[in-house]
């Protein structure tokens, strides 16, 4: 009887099986790396239809965050201001530049300005600004030094893991409510002091730390 299989068939099968196994393992390691949320566009400035510079308005003009983001203390969303807010000044100040002209056009035509969202969360996540702001989480804790940004970028990854870092240990990140809108505020340098302060604030503000790490707090 003739040999159907050439002499190297044995080796071929052995290589194929072991190679396939190694390949499968490599895929199982490599693919999640490819697909993982990396830094989620942290630090990447987002272009906007009107090049609105936060640093100029906050530092030079002296606006508080709440001048425009009016509902941050009462609602889930901080809200982006209507054209009317911009027109409060720019109907008279710095009229004629391309940026302010776009604002005036929006006002005159009744077409709202379509901003690009920088901090985006999936639809099944329900984040509420007011409960954070009223309980000692500062704007800069999550959004960074907005007063130094000419174009806004994401300062933190906004992944669930990142949220949980604070939700599991709120003492590390809390500040007195009076300092929430203070861009310069830094957590206390000495870790033990910050933890002590944080623990006091958790008590004072009646923060239920059990509730912070439960699914129903953010997912409805």
């Amino acid at each position, binding site marked *: 009887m003739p040999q159907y299989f050439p002499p190297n068939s044995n080796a071929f099968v052995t290589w194929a099986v072991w190679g396939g196994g190694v390949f499968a393992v490599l895929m199982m390691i490599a*693919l*999640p790396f*490819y*697909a993982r*949320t*990396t830094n*989620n*566009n942290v630090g990447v400035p*987002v272009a906007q239809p009107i090049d609105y510079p936060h640093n100029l308005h906050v530092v030079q003009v002296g606006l508080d965050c709440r001048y425009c983001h009016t*509902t941050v*203390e*009462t*609602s*889930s*969303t901080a*809200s*982006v*201001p*209507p*054209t*009317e807010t911009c027109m409060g000044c720019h109907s008279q100040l710095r009229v004629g530049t391309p940026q302010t002209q776009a604002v005036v056009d*929006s*006002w005159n035509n*009744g*077409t*709202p*300005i*379509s*901003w*690009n*969202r*920088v901090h*985006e969360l*999936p*639809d*099944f996540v*329900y984040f*509420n600004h*007011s*409960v954070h702001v*009223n*309980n000692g989480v500062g704007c800069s804790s999550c959004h960074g030094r907005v007063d130094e940004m000419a174009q806004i970028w994401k300062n933190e990854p906004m992944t669930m893991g990142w949220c949980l870092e604070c939700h599991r240990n709120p003492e590390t990140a809390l500040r007195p409510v009076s300092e929430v809108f203070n861009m310069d505020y830094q957590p206390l340098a000495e870790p033990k002091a910050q933890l002590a302060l944080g623990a006091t604030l958790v008590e004072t*503000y*009646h*923060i*239920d730390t*059990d*509730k912070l790490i*439960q*699914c*129903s*707090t953010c*997912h*409805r």
Partner: protein
Amino acid sequence: MSDSQLDLTQIRARLANQEGPDYWRSLDQLADTEEFQVFLQREFPRQAAPMEAGLERRDFLKLLGASMALAGLSACARPPLAHEKIVPYVKQPDQITPGKPLFFATAVTYGGYAEGVLAESHQGRPTKLEGNPDHPASLGATAAVTQAQVLSLYDPDRSQAYANGGTASTWEDASAALAGALAALPNGEGFALLTENVTSPTLASQIEEFLGKYPAARWYQYDPLHPDNAVAGARLAFGTDATAVHDLSKAAVVVALDADFMNSGPARLADARAFADARRIRRSTDTMNRLYQFETSPSNSASLADHRVALKPSDVAALAAALAAALGVQAPNATRPAAVSNELFDALVADLKANQGTSVVIAGEDQPPVVHALAHAMNQALGNVGKTVNYLQPAAARPAVHRDELTALVAGMNDGTVKALVVFDANPVYTAPASLDFASALAKVPFTARLGLYPDETAAAVDWTIPQAHFLETWSDARAFDGTVTIQQPLILPFYNGKSAHEVMAALNGNATAAGYDIVRNYWKANVTGSFDDFWRESVYRGTVAGSRAAAANVTAGAVTAALPTAAPIELKLVLDASLLDGRFANNGWLQELPKAFSNLTWDNAALVGPATAEELKLETGDMVKLSSNGRDLEAPVWVQPGHAPGAVTLALGYGRTHAGKVGSGVGVNGYLLLDHTVSGAAAATVTKTGAQYELASTQMHHSLEGTGERRYIVRSGTLAEFKEAPEHPHFVHPVAHHEADLYPNYEYKGYKWGMVIDQTVCTGCNACVVACQSENNIPIVGKAQVSKGREMHWIRVDNYYSGSIDAPEFFHQPMPCQQCEKAPCEPVCPVGATVHDSEGLNVMVYNRCVGTRYCSNNCPYKVRRFNWLQYAELATDATEMSLANNPDVSVRSRGVMEKCTYCTQRIATARIDASNEDRKIRDGEVVTACQAACPTQAIVFGDLNDTGSRVAGVKASPLNYWMLEELQTFPRTTYLAKVKNPNPALLNSEGRG
């Protein structure tokens, strides 16, 4: 549904020999049919063919291969580069806070009568309706139909364009045509208006102005929802118009003559609340009222009856006459129906005589005017007037018997006197009695125009179609059953440039550019003294006009000499459907899929017959029969309904439409084809089997809790007397002692401890909670085929149970939301941890983790979990207008994800956040679940159990409190109060027990 023979004699024998109460959900369960067994064993029965018909093995494999290749790494994508947009206002309205809803008071109308609502609006988009606590016809509650109205607003099948015959047109052309038609008829001779029941003071004054200008014009009213028989009955009794308004809080004895007073009629919500308040029982020392119900087909009100007898319609009338005679009222001669025994009749008369001034007799709309007149006379004889019954001036602008008005109109159309007809809102081509043949009469009218919400049967037959604005898009006003006026305000601009009745009427009065806002304001400016701005702000804000309740009507009932209806071997009752009403909601998917009380039918209507009639005519559920009445025929499927009177057939109107829209056309059979304008009650009919079969989709056998043969005391019920025997530990609440041996350790809930109690004593099974939950939580509909497989998605379902004989059972309704078990069987078995427990006691469902194993649903003994077998919800990529009805505070679930009742976790979260922002605790009553808010009888109570002063903690302390399937040691947070009935002590055996 009818593979096996249901041997009714055998079932009757078995039930008769039963010792102790046995609760059954369906005849199939009693007969233990194969189909019942299938649904009992498997929550989701496997079908013979896994795919829809027509897919071969090769194609299946091809699809499988293709989807594998495409599915590949599609989930492993980087975050999308295109940014979501934030689009703020240009000029933001003062009150709007993005992220927080606003509530505006308006009213929904049925038959012209208003029921106040608070419409929840998210940044200008209405998403939910709640009741208006300040409105007398709502008291904070809503009916099931009202909850579904918000979906109708976004219905893409609504009338979107002006049309002249087949060609598109504009408002300018339509209003010009109206003016032209009017100008061609001097003095309006031959010009006719057809409206539904008008209670709107503004519209009434506009019509008055019109008739003043054109004295020869005529105004007709036809509204299938109008209580014609009540109006005719009042005229018969008093010789003038008066509305009977009941005060059931003062009634210890209520007699209902074919009256579903808690679920139908303009005062249903107010009556339901008042009746329930007088019936609610927590301790054995509380007093309870007593209800005697005499009716043909089981009704929601009868669920609360202490004594019920099923009588065919003519027998109800005969009983009314006999009862009236026994109370000393001069009434037509009648023999008491045999089904009402001497014992029951005598006890009833004695009970009424002992409760003079604290009793009330209510006649139902399906009974002819003579029965209404008898009821008025009886109330008068019993001294109830001014106490439990008050007579007020009618709220309708021009009270009329609509049947007669339509008959006169059709006569005019047929003989040519009507030369122009403008129809407001009504759909007479579909809803007019077939005996009038409205369609052919309409064809004879030279000029016809119609203002309507849908391009329906009437719109297809008229010359000019004007799209109507939905009530949520309209400025108007309306009166409630007691005359209270609500100024209706819109929540959103009309989507399709629709017009309101006011704007069309203004065009007829010569001003085609008047806006509804101005018209309504101008009316009230002319009719209000003092500061108009104050009046307007207060009235629009509150949803009621202060002091607008109707004045009393001084009326006395005379002797009743009209003839009683003649009996027939089989009497046909054509009734308004519980969900679709007269058919106007046929295109509303939520209402089509809402399981009817008792039969649990969805997506169809059926001819209901009693078991006795079914045996006699050898009918089974699903058989097609030919109903013939007054020379007209209709084929309909049969449903054998336990508790339905012998010698009668009940068919719901509102189905069998041809131009309802994508959802409603062709669903069910059209009962209007049998409707006769000369008949005010039930008509004689014959029923013949055709031999064909029809598949009905009922949810009755779905989600059974019966288990493997073990007796599970799911429904617990007893009498007030039994409760008094053992006030702290009634036997019927704890029939069997359970051995407690718990596997899981206890957890101490220190913060909020959410819990719910459902009071079965006052639950009428009206389904308001079901639709409220659907509206609040973005629950999709699945269609008839999927419902047949048990895949309906309602998070709360109302299980119906019967007890006693199949001919005269007692009725029980049990709303079943997720029980939120403290030791939930569904939690430990989820392989990905998608269902977990939180520190407040909620069993949390995390949609983004769920992979669709369905082990949780398998483990749930209450069968309250719902799985998205297919992509039922609209994806963002192919969303229609219907997605605008979604509540933004609740996730929309995709295919493959499990969902269930969450105790309205979004409402709890909102309250918790608000409380935290104000550094306080959540107060009792701050969190109201959707089901709790909607319930007309306040059967559902929700709150924090750790708050010792809360209402829910107080109710759970009642000795009637128990939880379902306690032997399983799940410790559910949702508990029930056993149903207590208050039968007449003189009728101690189960004589005519309701």
